């Protein structure tokens, strides 16, 4: 069971790395703010997958009533998910505000913070 957990965890972590890379592709190359939000969503899913892999990797498998590794992985997944949801919610508010004030979704047009 433990060996299988290790294999599954390593596959999950590798897939999460590729997924994070794809998310960064969305953040760096997409100019639409909605497309960037989808990239952020994919990014935090990949981080959640790493947390799940962490939990799998640290499962004790000794029949404890509450496995500490799983509990830590669960806590990490919960934190990442809640922060990700809040981030998207705030991002959507910013997008709506920007469209109302500027009428465009172009992220490259947002240079007010520069200099």
């Amino acid at each position: 069971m433990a060996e299988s957990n290790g294999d599954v965890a390593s596959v999950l972590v590798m897939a999460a790395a590729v997924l994070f890379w794809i998310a960064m592709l969305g953040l760096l190359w997409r100019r639409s703010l909605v497309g960037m939000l989808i990239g952020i969503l994919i990014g935090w899913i990949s981080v959640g997958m790493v947390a799940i892999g962490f939990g799998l990797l640290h499962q004790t498998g000794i029949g404890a009533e509450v496995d500490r590794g799983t509990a830590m992985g669960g806590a990490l997944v919960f934190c990442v998910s809640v922060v990700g949801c809040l981030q998207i919610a705030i991002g959507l508010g910013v997008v709506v505000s920007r469209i109302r004030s500027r009428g465009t979704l172009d992220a490259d047009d947002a240079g007010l913070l520069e200099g």
Partner: protein
Amino acid sequence: MTEAPLPLIVVLGLALACAFAAIVFGKNLTRSIAAALLSLGALGLALLLAGTGLLGLILMILSTLTLGLIQLFGWMLVDVDRDHLPPTDRPTSVARSMAFLLLGGGLVLLLLAAHDGGEFTVALQSATSQPSVDPNQIGSLALGLFGSLADLATLLGFAIASCLLATLLLLQDDEGKN
């Protein structure tokens, strides 16, 4: 290498391909959302196949709800045919490509180092012999999450931060100047 079940690898591959399609199809919001939903479905199936149970379900439910929010607001805000944006400036494209390639290279290096250095195996051995998380050492466990790769992770963090800053500096201002 690994002995993970083949269906898990196939479903994960499908999920990654759909996530890539969701980004590539970004000029059409409907296609992008559809590919992202398919990717989420495949990821949920993969997590269930991996035996993650409730954790995978929590992650997938929250992700689907968030994607639904993006879909709702996106359809309210965007012309779903295409985003009508002009092409990106060349210096900005180059800077973003460099940041993207550096990030990909860093991730590959980290994975190779973790695999060759036996990080997964070491954690697995400690997990089979005793409870791997000592409640008295949770703080030190969090600090040493990267183990022997901590230095590499720090360097990678600095490199990514510098690239993102360079990208930020190359953003256009309101008059269209760099």
